[in-house]
């Protein structure tokens, strides 16, 4: 793919929610080349430079799919981007991506809850700290609810995709 194509693909797959400018795409490509994750691969008929992943780049990508995102810093809602891409890239086990993330977010939620219980028990309670923690708790909870929702939607979708062929037979012995 060439740079502008990459930009278009990203925007297509994420419903243009996080628009990119092509300059960003090229700076990122340069960084990836510098780090040995991408190489240039000639040019197409129109003279566009083409790029492809190296083995190391492929490994880095696999690692990204397999690893839950930490809660410290998530530029541009990386989790949403990650799932939007996961459903469009062949060979990615989306339910596994969802579950890995859910377990990790649940762990954070357990940690926040422990801190909150401790802060609540302090005399006098540390109210400001409790409120900050509760904000984290509700954010993590909402992320888990969203992940649950994604999963049930995936299951629903999988059933729908399976049903056209399966539908033909049961229909006959169906109602009426």
């Amino acid at each position: 793919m060439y740079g502008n194509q990459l930009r278009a693909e990203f925007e297509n797959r994420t419903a243009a929610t996080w628009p990119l400018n092509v300059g960003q795409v090229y700076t990122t490509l340069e960084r990836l080349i510098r780090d040995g994750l991408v190489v240039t691969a000639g040019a197409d008929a129109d003279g566009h430079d083409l790029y492809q992943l190296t083995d190391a780049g492929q490994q880095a990508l696999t690692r990204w799919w397999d690893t839950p995102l930490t809660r410290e810093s998530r530029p541009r809602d990386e989790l949403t981007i990650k799932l939007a891409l996961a459903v469009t890239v062949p060979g990615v086990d989306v339910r596994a991506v969802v579950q890995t993330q859910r377990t990790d977010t649940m762990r954070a939620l357990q940690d926040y809850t422990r801190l909150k219980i401790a802060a609540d028990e302090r005399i006098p309670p540390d109210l400001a700290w409790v409120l900050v923690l509760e904000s984290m708790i509700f954010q993590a909870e909402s992320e888990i609810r969203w992940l649950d929702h994604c999963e049930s939607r995936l299951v629903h979708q999988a059933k729908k995709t399976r049903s056209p062929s399966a539908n033909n037979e049961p229909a006959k012995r169906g109602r009426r």
Partner: protein
Amino acid sequence: MTGQRGSDGASALVLEMIDVSRTHGAGATAVHALRGIDLQVRAGELVAVMGPSGSGKSTLLHLAGGLDSPTDGTVLVEARDLAALSARERARLRRRSVGYVFQELNLIPALTAAENVALPLELDGIHAKAARDVALRALDDVTLADIADRYPDDLSGGQQQRVAIARALVGERRLLLADEPTGALDSETGESVLALIRTRCDRGAAGMLVTHEARHAAWADRVVFLRDGAIVDESTPSGGAESLLGLHG
């Protein structure tokens, strides 16, 4: 504090499920509600079970409490194999060792709070006076001593749920099974119910909490995820929460 310690220093196993399966029906129409579940809950530990509807959460709880029997595998409560007990022994174990808290509170409207809590003890042959004393202590534990003689209809939802928890853990029962115990309660009252379950576990009970709310499951020491009747993952706190917040240092 009262957590039983085994000789190896670890807390005693209160609930142990070994390769437990539950199938409804047979052949092509068989429904596998649970498949090959291995799960242990120790004294002092609270385990939450999460999963989409139909994943087998409630079935798991029913098997743990002897309200249903597995098709395969073994369920041990305080080291006793439920399948090896007679129906009578099993009923006795359910009364004496296991406490249930359900979304529907199942308090008896014609009995006062204290009478509701005392009921399982009286059924077990303890004299009314002694049972009432124990019940009052149990209500005091959940800070409800002052409403002991009120009827369920005169109590708020949160108070009713606390009465149900007092009843679930009255006497020597060490296994607390809760199915969506915060169901109809508002967020803060729901939280106080969880705090209570947490406290009972910290004091030595073993707890299993089925919930679809992550915020409630987070009170547990372990969260088990069920999907299609099997455990797919498990999370425990990392203990490094401060670093997550980026606020320390």
